[in-house]
């Protein structure tokens, strides 16, 4: 079973997305801020990280750079889900190591499709 970490400061969002992903047989863990997520990343291995970029303690971009610095998570795919749609910012996230980006408000079938594609992609199989 694929293990996914969802990071977002709003529990309503994390609950809704995690419920849908759990229904699709994913094992889901949630975190409400970057610091909490970083702690969870230290403890477990994940097949996908879904994160917002505007969060307290540790922004999504900082979290992303931390993920990419650690050998353990270097190959973990990262999906950025945020309300920001500024082109320069999106380019920055991709440069920092994001694999995909979806804009809020998001369409659930599109999210599911992206998640399935990201966790199934062979290039993310850790060496």
């Amino acid at each position, binding site marked *: 079973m694929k293990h996914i970490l969802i990071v977002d400061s709003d529990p309503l969002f994390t*609950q*809704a997305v995690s419920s849908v992903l759990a229904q699709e047989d994913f094992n889901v863990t949630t975190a409400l801020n970057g610091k909490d997520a970083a702690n969870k990343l230290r403890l477990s291995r994940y097949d996908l990280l879904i994160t917002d970029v505007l969060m307290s303690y540790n922004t999504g*971009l900082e979290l992303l750079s931390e993920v990419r610095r650690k050998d353990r998570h270097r190959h973990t795919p990262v999906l950025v889900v945020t309300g920001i749609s500024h082109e320069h910012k999106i380019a920055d996230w991709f440069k920092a190591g994001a694999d995909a980006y979806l804009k809020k408000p998001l369409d*659930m079938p599109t999210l599911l499709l992206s998640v399935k594609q990201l966790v199934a992609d062979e290039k993310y199989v850790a060496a």
Partner: protein
Amino acid sequence: MRSMWLPELSATPPAFSWHFAWKSLPVFIKICLLIALAAMLGAALAMISITVRRNALQKQEALMEQLARQVNELLLNTIVLSPTPKGRSMVRADFDTSGFYKLGLSVKKVNQVLVEEMIHYRNYFSGTIAEQIRKLYLGLSLHKAALLRLQKKSWESRSNALAELFKMDIEVPRERLQELLRSDNRYIREYARLMLIKFSKADPLAVLFELDEPLSQWEQLEIFLLVKDRADITAAALQKLLPPANSQAGLNMLAVKLAIHFHLRQALPGLLLLADATDPRLRTEAILAIGLLGNTQSQQYLRDAYSWQTHEGRLAIIRALGQIQNSRHMRFLENEFLYSDDFETKKYAAEALIRLYPLSKATVDRLAGNTEPENQVILQHSLDPLINAS
């Protein structure tokens, strides 16, 4: 034996009397004591009242939280996790609404929490979920309560009702909106305008042509989001929001953003006039728009205007030149990066050069190896998105 000349001692001491003690006190002491007593009583009453109110508030908050959790659970099970036929993203209308009625929708607070949670969901989810929540809102007749609140005297009730209907995509009769446009309250006028734009069949910006009050930044953003996916935004409509036809900064700013978004080059004459606007933000946005939309001539105009522009205007020109994907102005950007005395100009020039990748790759590589340490640091910072973002 007791001697005869000693006074006889009484068996019991004279009783202390509050009444006698009070009577024997001077008047000013009596007044002071009365004031002190009143103050102590007042403080005690205030503390009791605060404690009781706080307790009541905490209880109410706990109840509201519990209610919000219940509502959230219901919405999750009824809308988000409701089974839809495989492979189809259809909108269902046959919800089981009994759970929602059990909450007690006739209670104002329950109604309010439910609507807030529905809007919360619609802020996060689009597509089928958003549409199903709207259907549920209509199914529970919550829109009727909001439409009734539009008739109330309190501006707060009316603006909240209007905001609710706007966020739930419920159309309000046009005549009613026209009335609300004349309201004394700014929020009501703003929401009425947004409603008219949202549900307009054609020419959505028409309501702005006769606008005689400043357009707030919030409203600019909302209007932009409302019209950005429409196909009926014309250059003619934008020209009515730009100089010389219109000199209102808020409308000008909205028109600049829309001109960039829809890539409407016909708006260039108005944009060129805005390159000298007194508002520095408007000037910057107009210059960036000219850089993006302009032809070779207008881009050369920007380059020529560099000498007489303000500091903000110059920085905007550098950014604009970085957005034009040709190498015509690369030498100019390189010179500004190397020889300007101003740190910001150097930084913007470095970022502009990097934005011209891959055209500028050879130039950036050369500069990274051969310039002063300070310039190298600026280039490194501009190349690293993480440092950029912080």
